[in-house]
């Protein structure tokens, strides 16, 4: 079957699928008139039940904590698979290459940015239960703070700031800690991933029980995963540059 035949076939079936999809979407309630009862009920009871003012964080790490555990395991498996795929024979040699940025302005601005991003990342993780934020959001901001070390500094500094052993350990602790906190609840007689720690006062940092602990575990896992991912890809680039320089 030639290329043109395939494209024509796709065009026909795509029009059919689009028509079916848009007709199906027309059956939804009007935009702005949400009628589901789960969300409305959670809005009413979540603050009183969990002492957390950020209802989305309460859902992700408490009411639907099992789904978040599945997502974190996807994250873990994907990063592990990427590290396996991108193994290079000359990794150790490539890690000694520098690849530094030479502009003074970029280095200065980047240095300032690293501190700000790391603090904002930690802030977002810690305040996830009070204001918009949480483990996933703060974790990616934290990871971007470390990635800026490469973008505005050098590859060697990036490797020193995030050594493989430490980052691997951090990610394992993050994902394993999430499951461990869930199991710890069972040791106290509650269900898996139930909120068993004292709830504290609503609106402060010390509230919402296990949601805070799960936030920290998720933040650690997500930040370590992104640092590891970027490190794997950059290593590929360094090995390629090494081989080109030798030609």
């Amino acid at each position, binding site marked *: 079957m030639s290329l043109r035949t395939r494209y024509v076939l796709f065009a026909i079936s795509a029009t059919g699928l689009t028509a079916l999809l848009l007709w199906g979407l027309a059956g939804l309630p009007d935009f702005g008139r949400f009628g589901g009862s789960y969300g409305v009920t959670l809005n009413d009871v979540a603050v009183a039940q969990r002492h957390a003012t950020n209802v989305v964080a309460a859902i992700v790490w408490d009411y639907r904590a099992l789904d978040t555990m599945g997502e974190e395991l996807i994250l873990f498996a994907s990063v592990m698979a990427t590290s396996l795929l991108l193994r290079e024979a000359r990794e150790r040699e490539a890690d000694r290459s520098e690849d530094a940025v030479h502009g003074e302005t970029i280095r200065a601005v980047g240095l300032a940015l690293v501190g700000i991003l790391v603090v904002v990342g930690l802030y977002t993780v810690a305040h996830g239960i009070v204001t918009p934020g949480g483990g996933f*959001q703060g974790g990616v901001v934290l990871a*971007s703070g470390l*990635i800026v070390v490469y973008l505005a500094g050098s590859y060697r500094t990036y490797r020193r700031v995030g050594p493989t052993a430490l980052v691997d350990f951090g990610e394992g602790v993050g994902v394993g800690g999430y499951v461990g906190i869930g199991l710890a609840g069972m040791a106290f007689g509650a269900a898996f991933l139930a909120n068993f720690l004292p709830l504290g006062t609503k609106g402060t940092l010390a509230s919402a029980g296990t949601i805070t602990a799960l936030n920290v575990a998720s933040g650690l896992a997500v930040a370590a995963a992104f640092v590891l*991912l*970027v490190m794997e*890809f950059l290593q*590929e680039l360094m090995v390629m540059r090494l081989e080109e320089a030798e030609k």
Partner: protein
Amino acid sequence: MIPLQVVTLVLVLLGAVSVVAARDVVRLTLANALYGLLLVVLFLVFQSPDVALSALVVSVVALPLVLVVAIAKGRGG
């Protein structure tokens, strides 16, 4: 529906078309980063700050970096 939402939705649609139509991979990276920013604005306009936070960092820092490295490796290797 407020006009801001209509305008953002139209821009998102145009952004999606421009990402798919970009055949040169370098232009693709730029178009993808801009599309990510448009999505962040859309998420904000739909009153979801949590989603906007994660989408912002992920589509401006992580995805472009990984794409650029993949392109560089794809060209040189």
